[in-house]
């Protein structure tokens, strides 16, 4: 699917010259088109390509070049049986996105304090390792009980999750919310990860050729895509603290309409990955009003860091209980520091969505032994209580350490008071040219010289250059000082 950045966002500049930024490029564009049309040579110019068919699927790639699929199927080599348009787009996807390059570098030379202290540090994956030891300890004491139960669940089980697991997850989420919300097990659907959950919801809520609005910057990992629905990035600006602007949503919606695209919903993460803001009361209700007015859905990607704020605040989950159009995707793997386990939760009160989603989980269920393990660990209320508290403290502490360290280096961190596993860092002062290239040059330097993999803003569709996401939840306290030294090395040499 295509990635569209509304025109007003393209020419942003440091001073945010919006009016000129939107009118001028448009005008120039049309003038150029008219000129070319007037001057086309009938004999030599090839005919313009036909408009893309309705089911053309373009697949999102974190690098901002569009990958077009063709309506006619291409044969890879003289005569071999062709594959689908969808497959062609996906296979054309670059293998060299920052995300992939970073992953490869880390896996070929992973940092380890004792065995490979010069290795590459991983700060580019949205994953929480801080409390894995707590889970390991729990397992050491409780594993034996789990083995006995396995035979019971080796046979076919409901694809959308065992009943006991839904009860355990409902209980867990209530604990995370400190008992302020009632989660109903019947409104829970379990699936193989956040990507699967969003994929399922997108198939339920939109048809091929429709669109979702996604405020950017957003985490590329959250938005893996394959179903022919467009993602329209709605840029948020540093001047607004990267907060959600209803005006921007409104503009994006209208522009989509003009292009004949039907917007079916908004997808947000809360806290906003990688920026870190939690939705305020006010913003949450504004977004809800907007969705009500346009009669569209809201998908909110959440985890326990959504609820890490000391002051009580409304969450999408609470709203989901009463609003048909709100659906929560809960990142359970991240909560438990178990990214390899791939567990995602869909929570909704919309009976129709639940019914369709449940049927769709047959294509992405969680294996039964893992469900058993989850039932056991999540039902251990004492453990969960300690775990949530400890995890929160560790995340908060690590976050603070990273911010303080960066400030000492003169690097501004977006002060997110609340949640998330990222520091959203402004390094525009250190890029040679204020451009995508400048940002990517710095990113490469951080990776190859600094030996740390971070997430460049452009992979998150940030319209301002020079912002980077540093995920700190992969680090130990000792690692933080190493990170600082390495950053210092890079920026000083710049």
């Amino acid at each position, binding site marked *: 699917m295509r990635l569209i950045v509304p025109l007003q966002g393209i020419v942003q500049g440091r001073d945010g010259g919006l009016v000129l930024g939107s009118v001028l490029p448009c005008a120039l564009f049309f003038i150029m088109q008219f000129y070319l049309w007037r001057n086309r040579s009938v004999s030599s110019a090839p005919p313009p390509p036909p408009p893309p068919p309705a089911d053309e699927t373009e697949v999102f790639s974190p690098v901002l070049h569009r990958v077009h699929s063709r309506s006619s199927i291409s044969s890879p080599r003289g005569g071999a049986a062709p*594959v689908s348009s969808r497959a062609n787009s996906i*296979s054309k996807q670059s293998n060299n996105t920052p995300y992939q390059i970073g992953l490869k570098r880390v896996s070929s030379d992973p940092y380890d304090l004792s065995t490979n202290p010069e290795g590459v540090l991983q700060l580019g994956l949205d994953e929480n390792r801080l409390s894995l030891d707590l889970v390991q300890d729990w397992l050491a004491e409780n594993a034996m009980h789990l083995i006995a139960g396995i035979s019971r669940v*080796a046979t076919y089980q409901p694809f959308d999750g065992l009943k006991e697991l839904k009860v355990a997850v409902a209980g867990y989420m209530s604990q995370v919310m400190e008992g302020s919300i009632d989660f109903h097990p019947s409104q829970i659907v379990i699936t193989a990860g956040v990507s699967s959950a969003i994929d399922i919801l997108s198939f339920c809520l939109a048809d091929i050729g429709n669109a979702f609005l996604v405020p950017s910057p957003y985490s590329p990992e959250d938005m893996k895509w394959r179903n022919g629905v467009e993602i329209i990035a709605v840029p948020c600006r540093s001047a607004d603290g990267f907060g959600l602007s209803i005006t921007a949503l409104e503009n994006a919606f209208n522009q989509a309409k003009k292009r004949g695209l039907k917007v079916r919903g908004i997808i947000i993460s809360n806290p906003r990955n990688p920026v870190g803001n939690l939705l305020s009361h006010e913003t949450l209700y504004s977004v809800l009003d907007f969705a009500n007015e346009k009669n569209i859905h809201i998908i909110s990607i959440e985890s326990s860091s959504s609820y890490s704020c000391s002051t009580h605040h409304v969450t999408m989950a609470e709203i989901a209980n009463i609003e*048909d159009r709100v659906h929560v995707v809960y990142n359970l793997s991240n909560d438990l520091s178990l990214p*390899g*386990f791939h567990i995602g939760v869909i929570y909704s009160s919309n*009976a129709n969505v639940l019914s*369709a989603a449940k*049927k769709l989980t047959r294509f992405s269920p*969680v294996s039964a032994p893992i469900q058993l393990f989850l039932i056991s660990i999540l039902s251990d209320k004492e453990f969960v209580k300690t775990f949530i508290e400890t995890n929160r403290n560790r995340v908060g502490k690590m976050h603070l350490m990273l911010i303080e360290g960066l400030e000492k280096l003169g690097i501004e961190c977006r002060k997110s008071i609340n949640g998330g596993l990222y520091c959203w860092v402004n390094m525009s002062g250190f890029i040679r040219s204020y451009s995508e290239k400048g940002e990517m040059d710095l990113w490469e330097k951080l990776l190859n010289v600094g030996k740390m993999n971070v997430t460049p803003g452009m992979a998150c569709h940030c319209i301002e250059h020079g912002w980077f996401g540093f995920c700190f939840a992969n680090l130990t306290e000792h690692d933080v000082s190493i990170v600082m030294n390495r950053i210092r090395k890079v920026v000083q040499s710049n």
Partner: protein
Amino acid sequence: MDILELDQVEPVVELSRIAVSSSHGEDSPYFAGWKAYDENPYDQFLNPSGVIQMGLAENQVSFDLVEDYLEKNSDTALFGNKASGFRENALFQDYHGLLSFRKAMATFMQQIRGGRVEFDPARIVLTAGATAANELLTFILANPGDALLVPTPYYPGFDRDLRWRTGINIVPIKTDSSNNFTITPEALQSAYDSAAASNFTVRGVLITNPSNPLGVAIEKTVLNEILDFVTKKNIHLISDEIYSGSVFSSSEFISVAEILKERNYKEKERVHIVYSLSKDLGLPGFRVGTIYSYNDKVVTTARRMSSFTLISSQTQHLLACMLSDKEFTENYIKTNRDRLRKRYDMIIDGLRKAGIECLEGNAGLFCWMNLGPYLNEPTKECELEIWKSIVSEVKLNISPGSSCHCSEPGWFRVCFANMTENTLEVALKRICDFMAKRVKKHNNHY
């Protein structure tokens, strides 16, 4: 036709076409019978007059071997407590999957085929079940509106798995009892022409080998003919070999992989194999499936799309340990085959005593039973009538051939591996009694 469940209402906020369509197929008799079972399930002691589930192709005959293994190896295999082992698995989220697991799967698949072919772990793509594997392959090989040719009778789930989200059409390759439901070149061509007449672009042929619901391994000559056909038409061949380990005798199963090797076939990129541990290892709850493709582009694409259907690394680790244990796997494969054959003989014998003949089978967890002679008329309606009596009076859930798109009425799939021998005896006795009553009624009538 829109289907609304009891607790559903007209949506205030619109949903997608997929969400409201009925292509999930859960309204067919195949699933309706399950409802009868769910409401009144048989239990030897607690509910001896309940419905016996013979509509679920699940393999429990050899599960004791798996249980045994788990008990003996819980430390290393299951949630391996060795600190680094667990930690590594907990953090591992690469969609390539654990290499150790892919190697173990390749080896296991080789063992099942008697070592006659080799599988390259780099061509194995992991999915959360064969259901996901089949859907994923369909997404990759066909566009919405295209067609896959599938021999009938076929697994009712295909209507949903291959068509629902993908938007493709299934065009049947018709077979019938005149030649024991063998796929013929004429039937292949006829299906192809039928698709063309409907303006569908045919993208491939999907076979299940051994066949579900027939319970028969496809013969070598037929496999060669199918390969010739797809070559001529320049289309793909998907071979769902999910029951390959359930053939009663190893020499009777020929995998398409063997054909490719024997012919030194040059256009392997059109061939893809689907496998899973659900049937052979009796672990459907684990949700482990694979796509094995000889096509590099398909492997890359499938791998990327497998992000939506990942297997937990812990499950991969557990199974890697189990499948790498040669002693366990060799013993399991052999024992499983023997027990299934024994079960098969038992049911064929029991049905014969009741006056019912079955298609001669050599694989799978079910038999293909012929009640054609007992239908008042050779119609689908009569088939469903007799089926309803069997579910409600005899209290057996079996699968009517019409839900498998069988072109001849009167055939039924009867599963025998998801129960104890004792339960099977009870089921056979019930059938015997039912048939005796029916024959008596018939005789009295005349």
